[in-house]
């Protein structure tokens, strides 16, 4: 049976240890060298970046998250041993693991690390579909000749390079479609390499719960429960037509997934539909000045991302989460698409004023959608706002200064609120 050593990348014929380097990190599978759809998931990504950048944290449980009553964004594996999980309220996490060190997220560092990982993936195949900063699908079909090695070897090399060159670890799932690749990458974390072959697909899924399917949340789970569907086995018993009659389009997808079939392609450069940034406050606030500062900073972030991608948008969305977790969202269609922070801010601010809700709020978000190329944006201006042109020029000048002297070289007063 084909086998691969993930430490020295040697390939050999079965065995518990690598014949070359004696490493036990060996993956053995019948279809190891024929499968080509992969999912790569970084291990405790934010926490790993923090540990890499600050060696003092290395042997301590680390939790990434914001504020005294924020939630856990990522927990390192040491913290996970104590039961800390993502999305867990911070107070609960600290009860489970009082010695944990809580680190405020440094998104810039994570974005940079993510780019470095992405660059390594891009060397493997042009078909990389990122799902978030720390995970992506890859289709390595047809690359074996080019690389002179089958996909499995290239993927093992990828994680090795990530560890050697970037100091980050990741887990690989290798299979024959996206659904199973994603399931596989989660089987053997951290530093895992799992394979689900065509032959064992149905058997593998049989007793697994349906919530394994990406996109089946608590609500979908409940409606499946009502239909008596808990495991893939339950799902397998349903007729195609009955599933469609009961769940519509999802039913068709479920029927295929029950057989381990997923026809979705790995889509490189999936078009972006919108750009949005949000922030959960350190503590709930209804202070208009503080909120105004947040609206500005978020508008600037959204604008920065639009500028970086050379795109603009014509719908601005303001999202607020009240203390009781109720979400309020308002949007406005602009007269013409924009990428200016100034325009996004003014629109979001107008939406906030219109809302007339005094809060307190726990989260605020600003988004830009209905995207178009930047060349279509900000072409007309506003007769009634003759100063808009001046503000646009000032913003461009400030952008140039930042490009040259760094992001904090110049900021607006309201950014300091």
């Amino acid at each position, binding site marked *: 049976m084909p086998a691969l050593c993930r430490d020295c990348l040697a390939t050999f014929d079965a065995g518990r240890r690598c014949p070359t380097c004696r490493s036990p990190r060996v993956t053995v599978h019948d279809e190891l060298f024929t499968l080509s759809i992969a999912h790569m998931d970084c291990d405790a990504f934010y926490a790993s970046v923090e540990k890499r950048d600050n060696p003092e944290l290395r042997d301590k449980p680390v939790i990434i998250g914001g504020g005294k009553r924020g939630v856990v964004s990522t927990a390192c594996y040491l913290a996970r041993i104590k039961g800390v999980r993502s999305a867990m309220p911070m107070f609960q996490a600290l009860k489970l693991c009082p010695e944990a060190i809580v680190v405020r997220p440094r998104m810039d560092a994570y974005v940079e690390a993510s780019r470095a990982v992405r660059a390594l993936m891009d060397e493997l195949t042009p078909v990389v579909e990122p799902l978030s900063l720390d995970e992506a699908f890859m289709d390595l079909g047809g690359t074996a000749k080019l690389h002179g090695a089958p996909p499995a070897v290239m993927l093992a090399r990828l994680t090795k390079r990530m560890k050697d060159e970037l100091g980050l670890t990741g887990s690989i799932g290798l299979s024959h479609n996206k659904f199973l690749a994603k399931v596989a990458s989660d089987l053997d974390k951290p530093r895992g390499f799992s394979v689900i072959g065509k032959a064992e697909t149905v058997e593998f899924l049989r007793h697994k719960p349906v919530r394994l399917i990406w996109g089946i949340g608590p609500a979908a789970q409940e409606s499946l429960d009502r239909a008596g569907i808990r495991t893939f086995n339950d799902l397998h018993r349903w007729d195609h037509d009955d599933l469609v009659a009961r769940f519509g389009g999802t039913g068709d997808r479920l029927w295929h997934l029950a057989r381990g079939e997923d026809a979705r392609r790995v889509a490189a450069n999936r078009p972006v539909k919108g750009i949005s940034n949000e922030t959960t406050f350190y503590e709930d606030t209804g202070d208009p000045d503080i909120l105004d500062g947040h609206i500005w900073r978020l508008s600037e972030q959204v604008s920065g991302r639009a500028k970086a991608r050379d795109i603009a948008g014509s719908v601005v969305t303001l999202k607020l989460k009240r203390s009781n977790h109720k979400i309020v969202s308002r949007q*406005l269609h602009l*007269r013409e698409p924009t990428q200016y922070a100034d325009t996004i801010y003014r629109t979001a601010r*107008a939406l906030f004023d*219109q809302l007339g809700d005094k809060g307190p709020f726990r989260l605020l978000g600003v988004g830009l959608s209905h995207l*178009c190329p930047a060349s*279509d944006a*900000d*072409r*007309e*201006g*506003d*007769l*009634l*706002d*003759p100063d808009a*042109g001046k503000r646009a020029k000032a913003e461009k000048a400030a952008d140039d200064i930042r490009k040259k002297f760094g992001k904090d070289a110049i900021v607006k007063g309201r950014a300091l609120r």
Partner: protein
Amino acid sequence: MKFSIERAALLKAVAQAQSVVERRNTIPILANVLIEAEGDTVMFRATDLDIEVVDRAPAKVERAGATTVAAVTLNEIVRKLPDGALVTLSESGSSGRLTIEAGRSNFSLATLPKEDFPVMASSDYASNFSAPAPVLRRLFDKSKFAISTEETRYYLNGVYMHVADSDGGKVLRCVATDGHRLARIDADLPSGAEGMAGVIVPRKTVGELRKLLDDDDAQIAVSVSETKVRFATPQITLTSKVIDGTFPDYTRVIPTGNTRRLEVDAAEFAKAVDRVATVSSERSRAVKLSLDEDRLILSVNAPDSGAAEEELAVAYGDDRLEIGFNAKYLLEIASQVDRENAVFMFNSSGDPTLMREGNDTTAVYVVMPMRV
């Protein structure tokens, strides 16, 4: 209540009234028209709480009284009756139905009590004047295309009617803008209008008002208060709330220092713009004007759909200029010109451009250029 009325007179009155009624109503009575018969007239009253229309029609009233019925249904019925029919509407207090009879047709409509009908409170009209229908028609027709639909700038959702100073003294002026273009139309100040407070007449009211202005010989009685405006002919009274907001200082927006003058046949120009704009992208609709000595080249270059170019002979004697506009806005202002040539006054490719008809300064348009 019981009265007989000629079908044409009834249709005119009911049609006018029902157009004010909103199609989707949460308050049932607002879908109804209030019919009041007394003496030798019948009044039809409809409202959306912002606008109220009262129509009077002569009728043979047998029994005075009042009731309300669904405006749209009544209108449909009357519309479908044969021309020249004599229609009898009657209601006996107890039945709660309005009976409509015409020839061999017989209808019975559900009614709602007249007491529930919201009659618009009368206002303290400080200014009252009379203006010929064609004058008001010109003021509103030439400005209404520029009314904004932006909800955040609600104070632009109407025509700003006010008294203004112009070179020839005080004028009655209508201004509308949406930030892309602006229209400023002047008329001689009618006597009695001198002290009128400026009001923003909402878009819907402008549309309803237009129906009063078709008759060239009609005189329209205009009454203005701080919160309401009223336009009346002997048959119809249109009362409307005005937009509660401050219209921006538009005078700053109208360029005074533009010196580059282009004169062009408006109809030719509009047709050419329309032709080249055919290939422009749905998103931008940008048209480039390239001006040189007595020559104008209109061009569109849309990378994903194609390119177009057309040359026009024009009167232009200034430096070369290239400036872009949204084709839709150019077409709209060009179509306002009906007698003489269109005169454009440009400054630079980034500044607002002014347009007027010949040397007539009583109708002035401003349009923002577009980066091309």
